[in-house]
């Protein structure tokens, strides 16, 4: 077992993990932050995307020990009490989800797109940047709309 110390959603946490424990397993099973989902075992679906030191990472493809000392943000870290984050609100307003399974990863990737491309996003950019996030309810139209609206709201 190894001891890891990291910040998760602004709070310092420490945990005992096996070297083979994935970051997503640590988040879900030890911290009970079950908003981060696992949708595949090929690192392709993006349901597990979280921010590690400000960068989007597939938490199913990082060992928990590799995140030792890092600053991690999950979907649970976005809302301010009962007030949803503008990107979450935009998903709600634009019907950017159906079953909701892929949504945490979509929202985190949406934030990553805003970080790198700013608040005024065209649809082509969002579609290209979302190629590591798969939705199986065939809802991309509204996801793209939601991310563009969320990006705009974040700039207001």
């Amino acid at each position: 077992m190894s001891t890891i110390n990291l910040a998760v959603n602004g709070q310092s946490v420490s945990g005992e993990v096996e070297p083979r424990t994935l970051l997503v397993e640590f988040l879900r099973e030890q911290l009970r932050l079950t908003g981060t989902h696992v949708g595949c075992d090929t690192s392709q679906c993006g349901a597990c995307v979280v921010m590690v030191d400000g960068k989007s990472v597939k938490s199913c493809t990082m060992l928990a020990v590799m995140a030792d000392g890092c600053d991690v943000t999950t979907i649970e870290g976005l809302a301010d009490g009962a007030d949803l984050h503008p990107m979450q609100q935009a998903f709600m307003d634009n019907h950017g989800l159906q079953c909701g399974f892929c949504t945490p990863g979509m929202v985190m990737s949406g934030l990553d797109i805003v970080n790198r491309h700013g608040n005024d996003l065209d649809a082509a950019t969002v579609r290209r940047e979302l190629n590591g996030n798969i939705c199986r309810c065939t809802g991309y139209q509204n996801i793209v709309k939601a991310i563009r609206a969320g990006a705009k709201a974040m700039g207001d």
Partner: protein
Amino acid sequence: MYEFSYHRPASVAEAAELIANAADGKLVAGGQTLLPTIKHRLASPSDVIDLGGIAELSGIVVNGNIVTVGAMTTHAEVAASKEVGEAIPALAALAGNIGDPAVRNCGTLGGSIANNDPAADYPAAVIALGATVRTNRREIAGEDFFTAMFETALEEDEIIVAVDFPRPEAASYMKFENPASRYAIVGVFVARTAAGPRAAVTGATACAHRAYRLEEALQADFSAAALDDFEAPVDKMNSDIHAGAEYRAHLVKVMAQRAVAACA
């Protein structure tokens, strides 16, 4: 995943010692290939040695006509690098089209070339640009590095330190990508250099290779039209659910023509 021990050395020398002493050690860089492989139990190393704590393996330095990219430099860093963008824009563009943003934030140059996936992008650049792979033991010419599917010239516990890319006069990489993974169904990297045209093909055959016949066809006239009659050998092409051999052979020509046209 089976159990393994984890190590995070602070220097290349320490990593070399750890891997040499492990029963069945594996280096991990970005983990974007190795971790899925371990999950699927296609690999079960006794020890995983994380190169992530070794500062000397990361970074980009331009020295005259040579762009040196450290083995642990991520695809996202190469894509965003002003230095690479100025010296070899085709290399920055290639890195920016690998996989997806999250994969690019972790995946590294060293991991990509050590893995030598037959559909990987970087091998085409390493070969076509005439790059040199530097390890903790020696220097290996880019075109001698990729030896067979998932096989390289690396010895069991050799560590890639950096790759030196000479700056070409012009270069371009065109890939016809698998829409799900973004891996190359066929990718062609062409470069116009002082010593003549250079080209490499990835995705099409068992592993990325130098495309001498493309180079020959471009020797007298570096133009897309010079490849109008070019035919890639169908019998050497991969054939799978994504594309048949004849289609791939056709794509080699089309991607090569587009890459040459983009050099103008």
